[in-house]
């Protein structure tokens, strides 16, 4: 009892112990938002919690549990040799600062997105690319994602760094998830699975609270392939129909014990207490930014309608570019994209 009383004088300690005590009760509620792979995990309410006050009387805000899926780049690289708390804190401040200028929406692997980048060499000074997000990675300011599309029968992938100052706008045209976390197999799939029209309009979702999981199973082209897909336990691919020797070799090479290796899992993850701390820190700022954007959008909608009434022709197709064009002297050297052309064979 004495020990617990001592712990309760610290606000964060209280929040953590409160959350831990309630972790089991939270897991009993139904899931709406989680992908198929984590159906056993974190079945929690998707509502921002306002905890009752601690002994000092201040309310403790804790971010909703699905924040770690929406903003995975805020979590640091789990490798122990590269952890540096101060560096991570400064990076988070910079990330929030960038997010206040450019809206970086929630997206997942499998979402169709459009990215507008400042390009000095193009006639419009902007370059827009539409594609499906096949992979995302990196942590902190180096967070990246790869968009893939097939343009004039040529497969094209572009890696964008999310916090690059060249990026003017990121739109999510279709927000959905797929059965796998990495869709690199689209490179070996039939082209229709990677083709999206470059003038695609953003799709409206009927149900805003749930991100749908597209159960599409993709058909691959005949071999040779870029990777040994039969060894990767892919959910989103149709039956590969390979000779048995491939599956035998895959079994021989497989490491089934890694599923039970608790320390391997631990070294790849950030502990839950740290995640809570990070997202509690970040959550309030993100909420404020979301609120300001909503207000701005409402104001601009009102202004547009006002202009129409007065008789000025407001062009509805003109895209508003949030964020300014950065002069070349201020561009960061790290903010480059890599352009990967793929030869397409039939």
């Amino acid at each position: 009892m004495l020990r617990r009383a001592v712990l309760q004088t610290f606000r964060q300690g209280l929040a953590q112990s409160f959350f831990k005590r309630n972790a089991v009760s939270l897991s009993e509620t139904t899931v709406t938002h989680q992908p198929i792979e984590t159906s056993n995990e974190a079945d929690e309410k998707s509502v921002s919690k306002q905890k009752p006050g601690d002994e000092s009387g201040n309310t403790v805000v804790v971010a909703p549990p699905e924040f770690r899926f929406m903003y995975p780049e805020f979590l640091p690289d789990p490798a122990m040799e590269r952890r540096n708390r101060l560096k991570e804190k400064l990076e988070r401040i910079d990330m929030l600062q960038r997010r206040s200028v450019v809206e970086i929406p929630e997206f997942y692997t499998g979402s169709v997105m459009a990215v507008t980048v400042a390009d000095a060499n193009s006639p419009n000074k902007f370059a827009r690319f539409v594609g499906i997000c096949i992979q995302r990675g990196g942590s902190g300011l180096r967070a990246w994602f790869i968009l893939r599309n097939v343009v004039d029968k040529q497969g094209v992938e572009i890696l964008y760094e999310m916090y690059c100052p060249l990026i003017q706008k990121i739109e999510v045209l279709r927000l959905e998830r797929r059965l796998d976390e990495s869709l690199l197999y689209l490179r070996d799939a039939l082209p229709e699975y990677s083709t999206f029209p470059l003038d695609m309009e953003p799709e409206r979702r009927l149900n805003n609270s749930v991100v749908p999981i597209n159960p599409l199973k993709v058909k691959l082209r005949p071999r040779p392939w870029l990777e040994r897909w039969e060894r990767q336990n892919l959910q989103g691919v149709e039956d590969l129909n390979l000779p048995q020797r491939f599956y035998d070799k895959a079994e021989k090479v497989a490491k089934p014990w890694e599923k039970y290796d608790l320390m391997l899992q631990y070294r790849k993850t950030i502990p839950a207490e740290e995640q809570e701390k990070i997202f509690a820190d970040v959550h309030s700022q993100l909420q404020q930014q979301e609120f300001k954007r909503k207000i701005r959008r409402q104001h601009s909608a009102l202004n547009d309608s006002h202009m129409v009434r007065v008789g000025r022709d407001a062009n509805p197709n003109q895209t508003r570019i949030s964020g300014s064009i950065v002069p070349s002297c201020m561009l960061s050297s790290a903010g480059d994209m890599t352009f990967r052309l793929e030869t397409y064979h039939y």
Partner: protein
Amino acid sequence: MNQADLSKLVSALRIAVKPKPRRFSCPEGPAGRLEKLRATVTALVKYERIELNHPRAEEAQGYAERLISDAIRNGDCHKHTMEMADYWLNEKQLVHKLFKVLAPRYQNYNSSFTRLVLGPKTYPGYYVGTAILELKGNPFPALQPETHNYHYWLHNVLLEEAKKEFRSARQDRNAGTTESVTAES
């Protein structure tokens, strides 16, 4: 730079975790490493205090802590935790012990659940030496005597007062002699 794995929520461990795991030589290769550690973790949960070689003890400590922290965080109705307990504990009655005895025991702990004490290095023998790995709160007598010396123990309180008294008495004596000296001069 990699992104952290999001599929599982794990509690922070309160032991020093090294960045790289140790490899153990076994005829089955990497598959055998987990088999060996399984036997160690089962023995630890069964006997609550075991003596073994230091490297295996350190690795097994990590796995035991992870197992117990998962049991506390998720409880026995969680499918993944039950799978892990089923794999790591070779005797099935120990699965009951983990969830019914150990999880409640360590529910409110703010420290680690295990203790690793270095044991004797007998010559000739294994150079790295032995270690004793035990679960805290076990019924056996303590391995290391308590060497604390708290200020609020009675004999310490009395000693402090005695010291103060002695010092003040000495000061008075010194003051008296210096006064008499100055008076004489």
